[in-house]
């Protein structure tokens, strides 16, 4: 559990740093949608998605080359952590 919490913290910090968001990483909900117009989410767009791809590659050494995979993996912090976990396993 501790490792999962740590990974979520790293992912949230990465999102804020890579996208230059002016928010506290801790305020990002684990299950909130990262993309789209949902008021509970971050409202990221496709340009942000590429920024995240590059950030994940740099931080975790994982390549995301397929757009469909990217869309699913970037659905939320939880989804992103599952994706990173599956690639690291």
């Amino acid at each position: 559990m501790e490792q999962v919490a740590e990974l979520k913290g790293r992912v949230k910090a990465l999102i804020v740093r890579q996208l230059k968001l002016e928010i506290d990483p801790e305020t990002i909900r684990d299950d909130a949608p990262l993309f789209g117009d949902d008021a509970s989410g971050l409202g990221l767009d496709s340009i942000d998605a590429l920024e995240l791809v590059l950030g994940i590659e740099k931080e975790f050494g994982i390549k995301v080359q397929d757009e469909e995979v990217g869309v699913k993996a970037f659905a939320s912090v939880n989804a992103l952590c599952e994706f990173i976990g599956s690639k690291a396993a």
Partner: protein
Amino acid sequence: MSPLREDLPHVYPFRFVERTVEKRGPAEGRVRALVTAGGRRTEKGEALPPLTLVEVVAQAALLLEGGDPGIGRSGFLAGVSGFEFERTPVSGDLLDVDVRIAGVLGPIVRFEGTVTDGEGRRVCAGAVTVKKGAAA
């Protein structure tokens, strides 16, 4: 080495790159640009404004990827990041623009570019993000 009139939609005075010098991959290689005097591309007819150099890099990327008209003619500049300017090119300078793909996700492509002058001195470096397809 070919003229680029068919490869790039931009026309004077908004065309900054001249020709492909070396193509190392689908969108990786070296493009040459010439700073000309008295045109709108130069500031007071002499120096090339730094922001124009961003467009130089974007056009170089587009030119290198422009072999496919469907891609090259329908993309647009979507982002600029990490640019550092070290020198100001002036009229008569020949610039070499080295471009490579840094990342791709669907229609979004990030290109990294480095501009050097005719003596090999770095002019600027940075990244541009291009989105293929028409603007929404």
